[in-house]
Each structure stands twice: as C-alpha cells, then as structure tokens.
C-alpha cells in the first residue's frame, strides 16, 4: 500500500463513554479523490467518528493518519489548517452575522491579519469577491446581507458547506449535508458536492441513499460502533446483513 494512496487512515479507533463503546475498533481507509460515504442507523457512531477524526473528541484507543502523518494528538484547529475541514450535523453558522460575514470569517485566516486589532475591518472587503463566488456556488447570492440565524434550515446547511469550502479543504468531512433540505436543495447540494470533489476527497455521513448511490464510490457501513461492511454501493447494498441492519430499519 503506497502511503500516497490513502488520504486518511485509522487503525483500531475506539471511543468509550463510561463503559459504552460508541465506536469500537474502526479501521477506515479513505482513498484520495474518492467520495466515501459513511452510513449506518441512528446511533451507529458516525458523528462520533467525525468528532474523533477532527479531534473534537479524544480517542480511547487507536491511531489516525492523515496523508501518512500521525495526527492522533493534533489539536482540532490544526487539523483544519492541515486541510481536513468538517461540517456539523447540527447546523453551525454564526447566527448574528450576515451570510457574507460568515463566509469571510472562513476565508479570513489566510490574510494573516486575524490578530490585528488595530486594523480596520474594511480590509476584509478584499475577500468579498471570493465570498460571493462561494455563496453563489451554494445558491445563496441573494441572501448575502441576511442574518445567518434567520435562514431556513436547509439554507443554513448550504451556508455551512460554503464555509467549509472556503477553507480549501483537501479532505472535506460532511455530516448529513442534505438532512432537512427540500428536494430542490438536495439536487443542488448533490451537484455541488460532485463538482467540488473533483480535486479533493470527501468523506460524508448521509442518510439519503439516492444521494449516496449517485455520489459515492465507496461506502462503509457502521453498526453499533463497528464496521459492518465496506465496498462499492452496488456490492454493499446487496449484502444481506447490511439490508437487515440498515436498509431494513426504515431508512432510505
């Protein structure tokens, strides 16, 4: 296995909450350039895996490698700086700021002036064009001056994706990006994920199986914290244990 082949690898990743293993012995490999889907019933541990990968939680056991480099002990902000950027399952925007400001904060770090308390924030308007381009990509141009907190749920999710993309991630982690969206929004976001994945890797948790089958090359099925199956959608979706564990529980 060439180390360049996988962007992200975990070995025996586990997380225990007071005797209960939310994630147990997960060894995951995300191939460079893939759209890799992580599916599984509610409570399977998908969000916990994301929190472990992005260091919002500390693993009880196991290792995490990003581009061949061990990042098990790296801090969450540094993970993002390395190019691994996540979205949250529960929409996370800056509610009292405008959409434009939200995206600009995501872009701002690269200016290198984020500690400059003596500088006018007019200097941030240099980022407006790129912020607008990102808002356009997610179909939010007309709302640029709205307060983010006033947006309907689906649009907040779209804004979140724009913010994640603003960081130019090499590896994009999306936690249920289409949950709560209208059919129209889903089509747009699916299309967007497809487009942005051309030069990056995407790992996403997704319940909508039509989205998964459209986008993903590889699927990992998680059940009770453990990997149940892994492979291409056509193969995995035919496995009887997957059907009973996941498809049979009313999802999709």
């Amino acid at each position, binding site marked *: 296995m060439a180390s360049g082949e996988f962007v992200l690898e975990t070995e025996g990743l586990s997380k225990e909450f007071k005797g209960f293993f939310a994630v147990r012995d997960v060894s995951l490999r995300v191939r460079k350039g893939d759209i890799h889907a992580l599916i599984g019933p509610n409570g399977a541990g998908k969000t916990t895996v994301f929190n472990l990968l*992005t260091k*919002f939680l500390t693993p009880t056991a196991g290792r995490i490698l990003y581009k061949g480099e061990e990042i098990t002990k790296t*801090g*969450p*902000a*540094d993970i*993002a*700086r390395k190019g691994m*950027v*996540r979205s*949250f399952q529960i929409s*996370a*925007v*800056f*509610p*009292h*700021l405008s959409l434009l*400001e939200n995206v*600009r*904060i*995501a872009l*701002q*770090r690269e*200016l290198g*002036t*984020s*500690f*400059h*308390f*003596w*500088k*006018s*924030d007019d*200097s*941030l308007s240099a980022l407006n064009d790129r912020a607008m381009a990102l808002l356009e990509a997610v179909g939010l141009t007309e709302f640029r001056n709205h307060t983010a907190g006033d947006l309907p749920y689906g649009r907040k999710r779209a804004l979140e994706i724009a*913010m994640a993309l*603003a*960081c130019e991630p090499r590896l994009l982690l999306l936690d249920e990006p289409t949950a709560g969206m209208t059919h129209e929004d889903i089509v747009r976001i699916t299309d967007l994920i497809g487009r942005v994945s051309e030069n990056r890797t995407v790992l996403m948790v997704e319940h909508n199986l039509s989205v998964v089958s459209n986008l993903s090359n590889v699927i990992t099925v998680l059940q009770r914290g453990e990997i149940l199956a892994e492979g291409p959608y056509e193969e995995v979706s035919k496995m009887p244990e997957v059907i009973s564990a996941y498809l049979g529980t009313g999802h999709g």
Partner: protein
Amino acid sequence: MIRIISLVALIIIALVAPFFFYPVFLMKALCFALFACAFNLLLGYVGLLSFGHAAFLGSAAYVTGHSMKVLGLPPELSILAGTGAAALLGLGFGWLAIRRQGIYFAMITLALSQMVFFFALQAPFTGGEDGIQAIPRGYLLGFIDLNNQLTLYYFVLAMFVFGWLVIYRTIHSPFGQVLKAIRENEPRAISLGYRTDQYKLMAFVLSAALSGMAGATKTLVFQLASLTDVHWHMSGEVVLMTLLGGMGTVFGPVVGAFLVVTIQNYLAQLGSWVTIIQGGIFVVCVLLFRRGIVGEAMALARKLRKKPEKEDAVS
C-alpha cells in the same frame, strides 16, 4: 448624517461639561466608563464573564501610585507602568482561566482576584488598610500641571477617548471579527482553523490592560490607591455597569457607568442603602430590559426604522 451631528454634540458636551458639573464627579465617571468598556470587550464581544476585573483596575492603581509617590516617576510613565502591570497580570490570569467555560471561568477569575486582594492587604508597599494616600499628580511630560483641575479633566477625557477608540477599533477589526465568531459558535470557529484560546487570551490581555489604564488614571484623580480598587465589590460593580448600559454595545457601558456613579453620588448620604438600591435597579433591569438601556434603545430604533418601510411596501 445624524451620526455625525450626535458625535459632534457629544464632543462639545464632553468639552464644556466641567463648567456645568463637578469635575471630580465627571472624572470618576469617565474612569469607570473606560473600565466598563474594557470589561465589555470581554463579556460583550467574546462572551467571557470575568468576575475578577477589580484585580486589573486595582493592581494598576497600586503600581501607578507607588511609581508616582515612592519612585517619583512622571505621570505618563507611571500610567504606562500601571497599564503594563495590569496587562501582565491579565496574561497570567488569562493563561490560567481561558480554557474554562461559563461559570468556571467566572469562578477562577474571582479566585485569582481574591488572591490579588489578599496580596494587597498583606504586602508591605501597598499600605494595607490605608492604601497609598496623598499620591502626587505631577507634571505631564514635565510641563503640564495636573494639579489644575480643568487640565486634569481634559487629560482624563483624553485617556478615556483613547481607550474607547482602541476598543472601538478592536471590535471593528479582523481580530474583532474572529472574536464575534468565537462568541457566536466556538466549535465552528475552531473547525475553521482558528486556535480560539489564543484569540481569547489576546482579548483578555487587552481588556486587562485597558482596565489597568482606567485604574491608573483614577489613581491620579483621587490621589489614592486602596483596597476598594481590588475588592470583589468592584468586580461586581463593573458587571452591573455593563449590563445596565447594555453589553455588546459600544456606548452601553459608558451610560451604565455614568448612571451607577451618579446613583452612588447622589444617594451617598443614604449610606449602605445605596447598595440595596443598586441591587434593586439591577434586578429591575435584568427583568425589564435584558439588553440594557442602550441595547433596548437600539432595538427600539431598529423597530421604528423598519415600520415605515413596511408601510411603503403595502402602499
């Protein structure tokens, strides 16, 4: 346009105020206004409630007093020394407290400031119960006599305006934008690659330094640095001023400070009742207008501005 007119009016009022009001009262209010603005930088713009800000006001007061009276340094250097001491103390406090959230943050800052209080009570050079008294005001830059009350007033006004401008700029800077992001959703800010602890620490040090500047200036006005300045009552008072006037607004803490100082001044003859009245006002405020005076006024203005627009849309 309205903005410019009101700004000019404010400047004129500030310049002629000592001819109509007791200058010492105005200077006291200005010092506390700066203190409250500095505190608000942390509470209103980062969402951190410090319950130990008296430590910064007080330590700067002692350092400035010591520097003027014992070392005989000029006022500009003494104020700088006081401000610097508060900034350093802020760095230490911040380093210890910044990782904590909510009530734990408040408790740690309170505990640390109590240590400063006991230090001030016991240390040989702080004058114990008496404090440092009869501190000379000296000559600013060697030739401006600060013993002249009007001169002193304009000096205090200049300090206030400078401090306020620093805070205003900080809020409206790239740094301030990150602070707002942290206040709104810290995990999100982290996941965008911001090491939020560093930003919070920086804000804490700025707030401590400006609180120190307020304390240093106050020492020159009253020629006194005492235990009152480091007492937890003082930490509570600045919370009161900020919430009363409106946290997260640039003028709120100023209004709050003037109000509290006025109440204390005019009701001073009522003795300990002042505390009870103050407490009563606080409770009423929290219950009736949670955004504070300026916060509520701004919300009202927004509403009034929105209404005619809606009527236009109908017609």
